């Protein structure tokens, strides 16, 4: 490791780190927000489940680099526009989470849903106030996978020249110099761990009843 190089380029690396953070965070959040209603739809209407899951699976077969390249033609953006990365990763997150949300809602015990209905909850209210909260741990597990792989996928966009931590990889390759590459990998891992821990904490605080059950 060449610490002097890292020291000289700290400002640049920090700005790449911040860009990387947003490029991974926005798709994760937007993808989740889109996956909730669509997943609920797949859960509510059986006929839509197979179609939606197949569509999502199909989306997953498109390589990230390919999607980064094709999206400008569809969206009318420039190839260097970070929006391409955000849209591409949002699609991946959505593809992963639609199935997770649908399966998580399916796994809520029917008795609970019936009790809610007997207590006067209308279907939509039961979905939002009863089923969704109970599905949080499973959705959270899926979200962790999505967030962690988003952090890794963002760096691929460096090949197109979009500024984020992946730039450290291309710089290191051009200079035949391992320091920036190792720094990039470590920062990516730390960022992934940050997302992972944050999601775990959110799941923990939004499902206080789980702790009650465990402590008994």
């Amino acid at each position, binding site marked *: 490791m060449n610490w002097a190089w890292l020291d000289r380029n700290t400002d640049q690396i920090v700005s790449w780190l911040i860009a990387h953070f947003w490029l991974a965070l926005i798709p994760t959040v937007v993808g989740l927000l889109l996956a909730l209603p669509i997943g609920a739809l797949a859960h509510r209407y059986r006929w839509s489940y197979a179609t939606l899951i197949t569509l999502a699976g199909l989306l997953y077969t498109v*390589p990230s680099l*390919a999607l980064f390249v094709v999206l400008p033609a569809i969206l009318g953006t420039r190839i260097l526009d970070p929006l391409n990365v955000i849209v591409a990763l949002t699609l991946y997150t959505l593809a992963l989470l639609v199935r997770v949300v649908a399966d998580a809602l399916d796994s809520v015990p029917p008795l609970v849903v019936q009790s809610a209905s007997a207590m006067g909850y209308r279907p939509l209210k039961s979905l939002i106030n009863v089923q969704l909260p109970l599905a949080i741990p499973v959705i959270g597990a899926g979200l962790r996978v999505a967030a962690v792989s988003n952090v890794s996928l963002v760096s691929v966009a460096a090949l197109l020249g979009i500024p984020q931590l992946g730039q450290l990889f291309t710089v290191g390759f051009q200079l035949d110099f391992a320091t920036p*590459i190792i720094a990039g990998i470590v920062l990516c891992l730390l960022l992934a761990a940050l997302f992972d821990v944050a999601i775990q904490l959110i799941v923990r605080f939004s499902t206080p009843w789980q702790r009650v059950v465990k402590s008994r």
Partner: protein
Amino acid sequence: MTGAFEWLTTGANWSGSGGVLARLFEHLWYTMLALAIALVIALPIGAAIGHTGKLTGLVSGLANALRAIPTLGLLILLALWGLNTLRGSISLLGPAIAVLVILAVPPILSNTYAGIAAVDPAARDAAKGMGMTNRQVLTRVELPVALPLIMSGIRSAFLQVVATATIAAVISLGGFGRYVIDGLAQQNYSMMVAGAFLVALLAIIGDRILALIAHFVVSPGLTGRSVKAKATTADMVVLKAQTNSGTG
């Protein structure tokens, strides 16, 4: 978009050492080699963990950590190391395959042990009661019952490897990624889109073929639906297998 269509329908782009057919062969070669190595690593370890129930926490944690490693960074780091220490074609091919193997191991490994761990204990006990040895229980009961999940693990590993083999072109290897990387360098947008399209097409066709293989290798006792089985329905799969064998 229309440019990509023109590029794909131009005969000259299909032949020769940089043609679509040669690139297809390279792309498939990287993918198959990486998948084969990943299978050799992940299947025995997954089977051992699923069978004994030991080390599951450690291995699933490790599999998740592997997912977080940025593939591009690892590829370039290993390629630099390979170029400086190894000789011949292995100096670049080795790093590329290693990265793809690292990508393919977690889904196969976790699905194998989840599938075997989810085998109904009653089925396992019955097999032991019939006088099967530990090895026979594993190969004749646990692995066949876990096969739908194992196959779905192989399919998701395949998808990731095919998609990621694209970036092998970054370290001047072949495969469909060449069209994307070269297209980028030459500002040839049609070629880039054509390359992207070819990878997606290969992924979809390969996935269909694997689904077909899964359909034929999975015991008819486990119904066709079970191929898409999720971890949560694995128990149902076993139940179905038992009812089927009971009535048939």
